């Protein structure tokens, strides 16, 4: 996507250069040609409706083109592909904590294989931060209290800057890191090299058991809580008649404040886990619930290539 973003940028730069030169040149030309000379009077001209219409409508037309072009890019930035590999990001003053779905954890660095769609699911432990990778033309605020997402597909190996781009206090400018894009083989080696702590979903499953969730959330549908198998990404009918999509934010909210969106036909008796689980633990639980809706072949997406790298952001209204 860096390419498509740059294309619009170049177009806008050219347009700006043309307009700037045109205005400068016209002003200079008029200033010279009509400079004050003895005996030469200025001509009083009221205006010209035709000109007013022309230089209102034509710019507006150009602006609409730019708007549509920018919107199309934005749509793509905001729409992660279905089979993206997920990485959970927790930002805190003043560092980035990242957890791969496959399990490894990183601080201030993210190793990814080239050509794979990566979707970042991010939240903050304290203030608003922003996950900014200039090389990928991607940026998204990381907000406490909810998940925001962005995605990319790196097309070239290398190491790229990661910056925090929302002012967050003393070490805002120190909250930087590296995105390390590797050949798939090198990535697999890196993956295997770290200590095996289990995938995010596996850890989530263990925590799910530990917290007693299966007591109510039974897979046979007989429990006091809804069956969680296959619900992720699907619409859910709520008690009050609303329908919501069971996305990351819904799962998260249902753990932290279960009474907010009670599923139709169930009582609001789920305990509140606010303050009892950390952000990292929440990520594992969300990953686990997601895994209950995925084909058994696992969470890792296919390592396809093609096209430019991309970036995006997704969020609730």
């Amino acid at each position, binding site marked *: 996507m860096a390419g498509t*973003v740059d294309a*619009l*940028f170049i177009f*806008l730069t050219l*347009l*700006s250069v043309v*307009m*700037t030169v045109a*205005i400068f040149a016209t*002003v200079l030309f*008029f*200033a010279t040609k*009509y*400079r*004050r000379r003895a005996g*030469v009077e*200025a*001509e*009083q*001209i*009221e*205006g*010209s409706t035709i*000109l*007013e219409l022309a*230089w*209102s409508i034509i*710019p*507006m037309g150009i*602006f609409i083109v*730019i*708007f549509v072009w*920018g*919107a199309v*890019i934005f*749509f793509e930035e905001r729409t992660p592909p279905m089979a993206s590999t997920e990485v959970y990001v927790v930002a805190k*003053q003043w560092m980035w904590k990242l957890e791969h779905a496959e399990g490894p954890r990183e601080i201030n660095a993210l190793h990814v294989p080239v050509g794979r769609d990566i979707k970042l699911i991010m939240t903050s432990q*304290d*203030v*608003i931060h922003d996950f900014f990778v*200039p*090389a990928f*033309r*991607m*940026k998204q*605020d990381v907000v*406490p*209290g909810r998940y925001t997402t962005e995605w990319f597909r790196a097309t070239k190996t290398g190491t790229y*800057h990661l*910056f925090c*781009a929302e*002012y*967050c*206090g003393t*070490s*805002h*400018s120190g909250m930087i890191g590296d995105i390390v894009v590797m050949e798939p083989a090198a990535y697999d080696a890196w993956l295997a090299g770290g200590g095996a702590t289990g995938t995010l979903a596996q850890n989530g499953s263990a925590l799910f058991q530990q917290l007693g969730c299966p007591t109510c959330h039974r897979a046979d549908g007989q429990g006091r809580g809804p069956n969680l198998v296959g619900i992720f990404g699907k619409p859910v009918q709520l008690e009050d008649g609303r329908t919501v999509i069971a996305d990351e934010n819904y799962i998260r909210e249902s753990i932290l404040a279960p009474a907010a969106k009670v599923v139709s036909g169930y009582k609001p008796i789920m305990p509140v886990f606010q303050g009892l689980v950390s952000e990292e633990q929440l990520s594992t639980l969300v990953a686990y619930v997601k895994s209950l809706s995925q084909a058994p072949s696992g969470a890792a997406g296919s390592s396809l290539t093609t096209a430019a790298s991309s970036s995006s*952001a997704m969020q*609730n*209204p």
Partner: protein
Amino acid sequence: MATAAAVNVDTERENYLNSTYGIRSWLLTTDHKRIALLYLVSITFFFFIGGFFALLIRLELLTPAGDLVLSDTYNKLFSMHGQIMVFFFLVPSIPAVLGNFLIPMMVGAKDLALPRINLISWYLYIIGGALMLHAMVLGGVDTGWTFYTPFSTSFSNTHVIEAGLAIFIAGFSSILTGLNIVVTVHRMRAPGLTWSRLPLFVWSMYATSVIMLLGTPVLAITLVLVVLERSLHLGIFDPTLGGDPLLFQHLFWFYSHPAVYIMILPSMGVVSEIIPCFSRKRAFGYSAIALSSIGIAVLGFLVWAHHMFVAGISLYSALVFSLLSYLVAVPSAIKVFNWTATMYKGSISFDTPMLYAFGFIGLFTIGGLTGLFLAALGIDVHVTDTYFVIAHFHYIMVGGAVMGYLGGMHFWWPKISGRMYPEFWGKLAALIVFIGFNLTFFPQFILGYLGMPRRYWQYPPEFQVLNVLSTAGSTILAVGYLLPMAYFLWSLRYGKVAGDNPWGAAGLEWKTSSPPPTFNFDYEPVVTWEAYNYHEIPAPEEVNA
């Protein structure tokens, strides 16, 4: 103050400066012209403080490492630079100085509609300013001028409450100024002065005042809520307590976007006066320019969330705000085209005010065009929160608003003081400002696109060259700003005595003496001519010949 101005015999004539003496006659004045001067001194003071902070910022950024000040200090520097420049310099600058001074004269009145409210507004400004200074002396604020929550409410260890209250009070001052201007324009116009005969400066100031009236209160309540939240540990914006940080951003930007139009519309009004005068002809497209001012004021209230495209708003909100942002660009473009067209078949001279007007057109055009970049969703994702945005708004605020302000100060200085500034130095300063400004801020567009985030105390070494260029430019810019300070002061005693109308300008303010008498006119103005009647007014050279 100006009591020392009466040296030359010509200025011995009684005017607003020498009619009464003593500090009480100034501090308790209700004369709009004296209040304008009180504001002039105050905002200049704050301009230099804000400018000093800017210099420190640029000095720190000479090197990639943070080696001049601590990171916390740097964070305070950019925060207070922004707060002081926006709330204590730019917002009041033209409205409270030139607007206060000129609008009553431009409409043919003896004073603004509410003179005592005018004085109260200055005192509010001073109280707000004093609180701000106090907060600074105690250690400052480090939230950024944007006060984003939950950092400002729950995490910052600085004087957020005091700074918030200071800005609240200054905002109230701003509301009263706007109130006065709207009532004056509606009710105090001289007989024969219809709306379509008003100077375009008055139209711009009217539009500005409408924004001040309707927008500032929202900032006020937002700051109140932040202060309450911080002091009482409420949870309106704090996610750990169930609140929403984005609610703050919506409320904040609902004012702060129209605020940028408060800062630019008056300068546009100044340019609309200067260009006709130094082209000796009526403004091209008077109605278009006047209506564009109103259009900008109205549309400006509809685009606030374009500051939040990556903040976590929905895709559809983003689309709506992007489209509206393009809409609001159209009236500004219309103005630029009309000013340029005004020069067509004019009779153009290059006095200092005109040079500033040229500079305004060029720099505002660049700033406005880069706004098109930011309004494009796909591009904004990349360049928001980087130096690209900083460059964009400084091109408008400094390249546009400040140049308009300086142009206006030079244009009306003879009217205000009765003296001419030295033309050579005026032109030189204008040139230095233009060069220094571009050198300071153009590299920042590139820095932003390359990915340097804003509010960074330290940065990766590859950004250093552009930063050094920018800092070099800022020192030149500083010289350009110091020069007018010096020669305006010099001119009070040694400047050539200006007559009633040294520029041969149209407008009622030029039909009275320089400096004007306390009640503006020695007669009752009655207007029987259209605005910008330059076909009837001889050019200065012809008068002086």
